[in-house]
């Protein structure tokens, strides 16, 4: 192996030395330049056109450029040196101003080295934001990666307006309520994570992306499914039927029939998906959000079940070590996140018809009706899950497997099937969590990963592997995250959750509801 490799490398190196340089080095031949892209602060996918930028050497104008439709600009420079760059503030659309920082009063000085094609960041922000000067209102406010401050609405969604004048007590109450709300969302999403860990000892790093998946699917079906939605539905129906056949009829059907039926279902789904995809947008339909959420939950369950049936179970049967499985799940997270990005795009969206709602005053606390619904649904689902775990056979089996996989197996529980159900349940709950989270905030492709950090804090706080621990931990993390904004900037929310988690690991690593572990 190693000799072959060395041969290949040597051949490559020889090739490089022979191929004439300028072919590839072309981009480096251009000498010095300044360039950049000015983006729309409200939607970072778009550039702002027509902003003028002039470069001076002392008082001599060297060159000027205007941003194109993508917001790109470039000015060629004659030689290395220090240049003064001036942004024409007149040309900036009136709703924005140039952000102060690197650029002061529309001017900045940059040093350009030989052969340096330097990027220069010119950032815009909403015209109102600069005057406030308050960090929490600046466009880079949120944890979001695209500083997409939607006219200040975003922060309001995370931490309800703690607006001027209200007393500390009122703020406290308000934040407690939104903490509970946030905590319920975390709890719902995290139950699956904890149960999956309990049954398989595996940490599903892709759990956050299953949350995103749910939110995205609900968005798709509530705003118009068309070709993409139909195809997705067909594929998931096919795979879902295959997994179900495997899960339910394994004992009753002969093996060949079973396998044939599964493959027929999968290929049927794919064929149907292709047909629907070709027909494209001619079959367009859309459903109300609650129905779209139901579809998302079912599809989330199918996604979870599929991952278990076609990835994790084979890996377990191959005796792949746990550490390797963690890495597989990281890989799956990357795949899932970016497939979602390709399919659904990087935009920030909200569920239509739920963004702007009149607040309902409940005593001292003001809430949007959608948040009340979220809380109601979350509590109902959590109670339902608790009943499932406590009173049904499958629920008891889940807890038994979670408690001690070997013991459960030796007492006659079909561990593989229980694990499949746990993944289905976890996937469905994650999808629901995604819908609720998206309803409360915005839907975008990295939302799940950010929630995953809080879910980790929640399950560790409550005790890895216990469903009730995830509930308790979720609520605690939600409350801590929200209440911390009383005293600290809201960007530190996640940091507090992390600090809480680390503290818990120091004091009681098994978590609030976990049991002290046996060693050896």
């Amino acid at each position, binding site marked *: 192996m190693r000799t072959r490799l060395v041969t290949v490398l040597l051949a490559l190196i020889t*090739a490089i030395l022979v191929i004439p*340089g300028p072919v590839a080095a072309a981009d480096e031949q251009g000498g010095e330049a300044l360039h950049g892209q000015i983006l729309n602060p409200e939607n970072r996918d778009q550039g702002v056109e027509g902003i003028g930028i002039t470069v001076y050497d002392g008082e001599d104008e060297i060159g000027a450029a205007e941003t194109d439709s993508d917001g790109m600009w470039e000015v060629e420079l004659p030689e290395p040196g220090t240049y003064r760059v001036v942004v024409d503030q007149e040309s900036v659309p009136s709703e924005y101003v140039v*952000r102060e920082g690197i650029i002061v009063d529309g001017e900045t000085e940059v040093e350009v080295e030989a052969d340096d094609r330097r990027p220069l960041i010119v*950032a815009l922000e909403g015209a109102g934001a600069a005057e406030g000067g308050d960090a*929490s209102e600046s466009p880079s406010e949120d*944890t979001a990666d695209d500083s997409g401050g939607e006219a200040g609405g975003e922060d309001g969604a995370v931490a309800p307006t703690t607006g001027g004048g209200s007393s500390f007590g009122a703020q406290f109450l308000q934040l407690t309520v939104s903490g509970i709300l946030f905590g319920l969302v975390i709890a719902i999403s995290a139950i699956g994570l904890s149960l999956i860990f309990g049954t398989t000892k595996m940490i599903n790093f892709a759990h956050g992306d299953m949350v995103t998946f749910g939110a995205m699917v609900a968005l798709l079906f509530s705003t118009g499914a068309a070709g993409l939605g139909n195809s997705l539905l067909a594929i998931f129906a096919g795979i879902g039927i295959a997994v179900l056949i495997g899960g339910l009829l394994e004992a009753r059907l002969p093996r060949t029939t079973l396998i044939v039926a599964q493959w027929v279902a999968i290929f049927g789904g794919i064929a149907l998906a292709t047909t629907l995809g070709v027909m494209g947008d001619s079959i367009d339909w859309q459903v109300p959000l609650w129905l779209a959420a139901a579809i998302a939950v079912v599809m989330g369950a199918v996604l979870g079940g599929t991952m278990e049936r076609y990835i994790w179970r084979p890996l377990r049967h191959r005796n792949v070590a746990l550490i*390797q499985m963690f890495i597989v799940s990281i*890989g799956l997270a990357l*795949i899932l996140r970016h497939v979602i990005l390709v399919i659904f795009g990087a935009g920030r969206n909200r569920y239509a018809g739920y963004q702007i709602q009149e607040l309902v005053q409940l005593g001292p606390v003001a809430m949007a009706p959608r948040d009340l619904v979220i809380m109601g649904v979350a509590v109902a689902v959590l109670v339902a899950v608790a009943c499932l775990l406590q009173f049904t056979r499958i629920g008891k089996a889940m807890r038994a497997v979670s408690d001690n996989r070997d013991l459960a197996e030796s007492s006659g529980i079909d561990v593989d099937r229980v694990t499949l159900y746990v993944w289905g349940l976890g996937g469905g709950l994650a999808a629901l969590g995604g819908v609720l989270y998206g309803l409360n905030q915005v839907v975008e492709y990295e939302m799940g990963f950010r929630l995953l950090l809080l879910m980790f804090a929640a399950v560790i706080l409550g005790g890895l592997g216990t469903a009730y621990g995830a509930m308790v931990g979720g609520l605690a993390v939600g409350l801590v995250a929200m209440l911390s904004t009383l005293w600290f900037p809201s960007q530190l929310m996640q940091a507090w959750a992390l600090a809480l988690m680390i503290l818990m690991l120091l004091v009681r690593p098994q978590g609030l509801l976990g049991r002290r572990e046996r060693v050896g």
Partner: protein
Amino acid sequence: MDILSILAESTRSAFGPIAAIYALAAIGLNIHFGYTGLLNFGQVGFMLVGAYGVGISVAVFDLPLAAGFGVGLLCALVLALLLGIPTLRLRADYLSITTIAAAEVIRLVYRAGFAEPLTGGAFGLQNLSADFRTLNPFDAGERYGFGLLAYNGNHLWVLVVTWGLVAVMAGLTWLLMHSPWGRVIKGIREDEDAVRSLGKNVFAYKMQALVLGGLIGSLAGCMLAVYQASIQPDQFKPQVTFFLWVILLLGGAGRVFGPVLGAMAFWFLMTFTDGVLQGMGALGWLPFLDGPDYGAIQLAFAGLMLVVLIVFRPQGLIGDRKEMLVNVK
């Protein structure tokens, strides 16, 4: 689509400064995972504190570059202790959770509005490499090298220093891992209880490994700041860590040259797939995709590589089959 020039560009990036920086960070990760068995899913966090150590010292406090490196390394030390103390006595999964969360939280804090006076917030810091360039023994205007591998003086200087650091760190790894210290470390990877039962302070060794790998990671971050002369927090997203994992597994975990080879192979592949995607897009073969999707496809591809490598070829390109095939549990 000009396959030849795509290949040429790919090869160039395999030897480029970014590949060297990733190789450096992956050497740190190799000490963590390859030798000690620590599941660090937040190596990018160490790179970040290193880069910002340089950035803040140089751009905000006008300190010399050497002080910046010192600050960066110091931050990494503190971070390693903070992560290690609560988790290294526990099962491996706790470290993985804590590191992945901590790296992302650090990024969010550094890019937050209130940190802007120090970190420049979401826009980062600029003008970081003046000191480094004054040390440059090469003529910045001159082109050195031949054929495809010709670089201007500044780039050559970065290349020499970064690959030099890679060589030094690889040498350091070799020395350490061929010593009794390395034997204890590898023993911990296999079974820490067994090592503990022989009277070794496993916690202390794990901590030493975590710190050492973290320091090397932060050195990579420092070099990134110096090479780019500017840093933004969004360069330190979690996928950087996952790239490092692909690099490590591609090259071979637990091998001194694994990360180096892995980094070169990885960046070759990334540039190559990017070139091919762009080329196919230009030819109109990818009607469903826009330009920005190519990056996402590449990331998904990196994820796929991670899965396929760890399941089917855990020993990587140069890993020892004999060593890896024996039950890995």
